[in-house]
């Protein structure tokens, strides 16, 4: 058996009295695309955010390539904090609300972290940023301010910003949920390219079409627990649990 690329081991997280995550285990191999689905408030975003320690779990471990991310004791030492930043630099994250930096233009959005975190020289960083902006189809928007970009363009800019750090893992938190329907396609096509390049990805999504076509595995969560997981065909066509059946029925209602 090949060693796991990313291991999520027994993660627990409580917000007040609510169990956001309960005994969550998940193994991801290199190049795998995992789509996480589930009703809102089920903990899928929280799960994603525990991977890069944006939301530190109460207990449990996240292991990337054999190394523990963050800490498993809750308290962070100075060294752990530094190594956490090193991990985060290699784990791209894309948010539902894009979170591009409005005070920087498109190019600078992609350049900034390269210079600040990876200490790359400016002209080299700019060269790379232009190349990546080109790949996500924003070549003619290089000097544009984020306020002037459409939602789809902002999200592609956010993806470019992550890609500039040469991530080995991408976390995407509902990347298309805040977009107008006609703009979803342009973001999905960028993601499809990533899949084809063999990027390891964890995607929280409601795009079942995308999940079934490009996901290697679908994980269904409800009330903080992983209820079912498996290849898209089994999960979507023959759900084993009542909860997943109910969820899929509700989703199909919206497409009527």
């Amino acid at each position: 058996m090949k060693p796991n690329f990313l291991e999520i081991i027994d993660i627990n997280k409580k917000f007040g009295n609510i169990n956001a995550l309960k005994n969550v285990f998940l193994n991801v191999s290199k190049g795998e695309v995992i789509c996480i689905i589930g009703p809102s408030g089920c903990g899928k975003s929280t799960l994603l955010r525990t991977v890069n320690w944006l939301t530190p779990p109460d207990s449990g471990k996240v292991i990337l390539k054999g190394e523990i991310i963050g800490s498993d004791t809750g308290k962070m030492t100075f060294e752990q904090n530094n190594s956490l930043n090193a991990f985060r630099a290699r784990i791209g994250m894309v948010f539902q609300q894009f979170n591009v930096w409005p005070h920087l233009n498109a190019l600078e959005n992609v350049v900034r972290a390269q210079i600040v975190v990876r200490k790359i020289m400016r002209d080299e960083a700019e060269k790379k940023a232009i190349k990546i902006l080109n790949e996500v189809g924003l070549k003619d928007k290089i000097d544009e301010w984020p306020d002037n970009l459409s939602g789809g363009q902002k999200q592609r800019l956010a993806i470019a910003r992550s890609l500039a750090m040469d991530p080995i893992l991408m976390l995407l938190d509902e990347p298309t949920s805040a977009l107008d329907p006609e703009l979803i396609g342009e973001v999905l096509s960028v993601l499809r390219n990533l899949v084809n390049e063999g990027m390891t990805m964890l995607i929280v999504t409601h795009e079942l079409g995308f999940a079934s076509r490009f996901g290697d595995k679908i994980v269904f969560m409800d009330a903080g627990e992983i209820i079912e997981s498996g290849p898209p065909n089994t999960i979507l066509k023959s759900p084993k649990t009542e909860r997943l059946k109910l969820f899929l029925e509700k989703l199909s209602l919206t497409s009527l």
Partner: protein
Amino acid sequence: MKFDISYIFDALPRLLEGALITLQVAILGFCFSIILATFITIVKTSFNSRIFNGFIAFYISFIRGTPLLVQIFLIYYVLPVFGLNLAPFPAGILAITLNSAAFVIEILRGGLASVPKGQFEAAKSLGISGYALWWKIILPQTFITSIPPLVNEFTMVLKATALLSVITVVELMRVSQQIYSANYHPVEVLSATFIIYFLMCFVVSRSSVFLEQRFKVKRS
């Protein structure tokens, strides 16, 4: 007694010298207050310590709850009791700094509240932390939205420096008093003083429009 404009022209060189001191005190005091307030804002937000935040809240309510004039006297006459003897000029700057910082902290709190949490998260998720997180990502956004209230605060500071005349800082108001108590022409001298204060504040508040435009142009 008739209005004799020649007294204005006679007084003008000295008044302008005083205005220069006014500007120095105001600019230095305001810069220090911005530095102090920025530092406090960062510590407040990053560590969220109950003791520190409580202390700052106490400090702000103390500053807001007492007249600036009293604070100025306190620094000039009471600090020496504790062995800290300051000349009028540095004492004046200290008073302005400590007073203005309380207001700038509140202004920055508002500016910071307008920066979405996702901006922090996006930076952190890329491995940007600590100094760079604040300096490169969060503070620029905070200050851009805070331009109008900050410029307003600076005009307040500029006018507040007139109070420093009571501790013998030789700024515009003090010079003006010196001149009219020697030539007994307060009407002319005070009119000139009035106009100089107004012109300085007018230029400053217009600069707000300029600054806002500049950063707006960048953004849209």
